[in-house]
């Protein structure tokens, strides 16, 4: 069965790119969120296999959202999405429990390589 993905990013443009990458890789994108608060809500409701998480978002940033999601489900797999130059924030997110990260602008093969690894499929 295709793995279910929740895509979190405040830019519709970025969500669309990421969604297309997942679709091409045989994943099923089951939901989207445009900020941290929404992300936690959607996570609780959808229980996805994987969540991609933007770092900088309104209301609640990606690190906070990741912390909350892991409190809901300590086994949740959250992969951060970050631009180059945000390494310090990514490391903070990893400390908070994020499983991995992908770099924006995302390249299909890189994203799929990372998530497949994280989900133990490669």
């Amino acid at each position: 069965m295709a793995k279910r993905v929740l895509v979190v990013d405040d830019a519709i443009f970025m969500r669309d790119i990421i969604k297309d990458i997942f679709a091409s890789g045989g994943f099923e994108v089951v939901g989207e969120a445009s900020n941290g608060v929404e992300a936690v809500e959607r996570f609780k409701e959808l229980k996805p296999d994987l969540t991609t998480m933007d770092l900088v978002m309104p209301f609640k940033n990606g690190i906070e959202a990741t912390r909350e999601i892991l409190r809901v489900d300590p086994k949740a797999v959250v992969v951060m999405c970050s631009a180059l130059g945000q390494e310090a924030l990514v490391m903070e997110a990893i400390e908070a429990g994020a499983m991995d990260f992908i770099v924006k602008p995302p390249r299909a093969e890189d994203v799929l390589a990372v998530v497949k690894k994280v989900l133990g499929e490669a």
Partner: protein
Amino acid sequence: MPSGVDTSRYLGLYVSEAQEHLEQLSQNLVKLEQAGSTGPVIDEAFRHAHSVKGMAASMGFEATARLAHRMEDILDAYRSLKERVDRATGDLLLSATDALLGHVRATADAKVLPDTSALMGALERKLWVLKPDTTPRPSSPPPPPALARSLGLPPRFALRLKVAAGSATPGVRAFLAHKRLSGLGNVFDLRPGLDDLKAGRLNDGSFSLELETALHETEVRAALNTIADVELASLRLIEPDAPSVPKTNEPEGPRAVGTEPARTVRVRTELLDQLLDGAGELLLATARVREVAKSAPAASRGAMEGEVDRLNALVKDLHAKVMKARMTPISVMTDRLPRAARDIARRRDRDVELTITGAEVELDRAIVDELNDPLLHLLRNAIDHGIEPPVEREKTGKPPRGRVQVNVRRDRDRVVLEVEDDGKGMDDAKLRAAAVSRGLMTPEAAAALPMREALMLCCLPGVSTATDVTDISGRGVGMDAVKRAIESVGGTLEIESQKGKGTRFRLLLPLTVAVVQLLLVDVGDETFGVPVAKVNGVVEFPEEQLARSQASPLLPFGNTLLPVYSLAEVLAVPNGHVHAGARPFVVVEAESGKVALGVDRLRGQEEVVLKALTRPLDLVAGLAGVTILGNGQPIFILDVPRLLT
């Protein structure tokens, strides 16, 4: 304790109480590891560590107090962080508990306390990892491997990792790998350091570290395999994982009797032994008075016998109460088993669930003491040679997790203790072959043995089905020692096993060791007692009609022929009697099977209080003890199984 107060008078209490706290702490830790840090258990563990710290400090044992203090800190950290105690930490805390026990025992024996500075360092590092803000950075280096092993610390791997050359963010990749590994155990000796690592200042994309973890190498590899762009260049075990014998040396010394802390009082065990001796003497003295009363003048005889009856009833009641005071719940032994099972399973890569039922059943303290090691050995055997590795189990359609059950129940005047596993069972063909190859029996005799007796062959010295001698169960006490210990307390061992299904060891134990029913036999001018429990039957048979085709004469018994031994010859008793006509033979269960012992006369049965032999008489093979009969005559009690060896 204020200075000037002599602490030595509290030493005994300190030793016994600290040991109890530490044993319970050890049980708590095993539970914590299984269930995660759940409230009541971690609170309890914390309190035990705390008590030991306080007691040791009061006694002025600084090193012990410091070690206990560190444990207390770590438990407190887990309590407040609400984090799960992982396996590596579980190992560390259990090692520390063992080390504390070592301290307490050394104190009891007035020996120098063992050096625990390496362990102390490991605890401090763990604490620093847990609470970096409030803990000073530990300075002590990790313990050298040999010491780590002796401390029972988990093995350590040296890893070298490489971030893919094309990675845009090598620092974050490396940091991610470091973080993942930190979740598996304790990371040491990270090169380059964490700051350089995070900044991506790597030498050719590589970094190295050491990982102390209880996980298997494959699990470490699997964890790293979930990270893209980080490659494991090399992984090697620094510490050859030589399985060491789990620590089984039990604390000596006094133990609490009963399980209700509020209503018990500590009594030295020697005092209990003396009380029993005293009560036993009273029983014997009463029996002698009864004998004397028989020859009293007819006028006073009736009254005397009445009084003797009353006295006898009182003494019997007293004796029963002393016996009851000696009764100890079997949990004293079985409480240690979960920890042992965990250690053995870990070392042998088995997945085992141990269940214990009936631990509240009580047995005489002497029996409980005697069975400690044998029970542990049976448990080891079950896990080591019984339970298959998870992969093998799944292939044969069994659940990957093996089951070992220790079931205890009271069965009339006996206690039945069973150790049962659902492992691969015993191979009777191998046992038969081993017995033949060791020259213990002919191939024909081995083949003819019924299954039950064939399985018992594993109790002969040097016969074992285990082809791989492991450090855990292949050496030290063998099944022969187990069987001997069980018999020494008047019990018997039975084995049932089904190939592929599992094995059950059943111990049938008397409630008490002290009172035995004897069959009294005369040989020459001597009288000996044979425990009735060991007697299969008594026959009278004319000696000259014994079958004499073999080396020893044979007595027809049931539908078999039993080898005959003259008890007078076996015991080297001068025998002036000539047997014309029928002679009594006592059929007993000896080590080699049933044998018939030729005696001069059967004198009847008597219930006696068995007294252990002291040096040098205890060195004489074939004697189990001594007792004084109602008529005042002292006699030896025969150790039937070993009479002929």
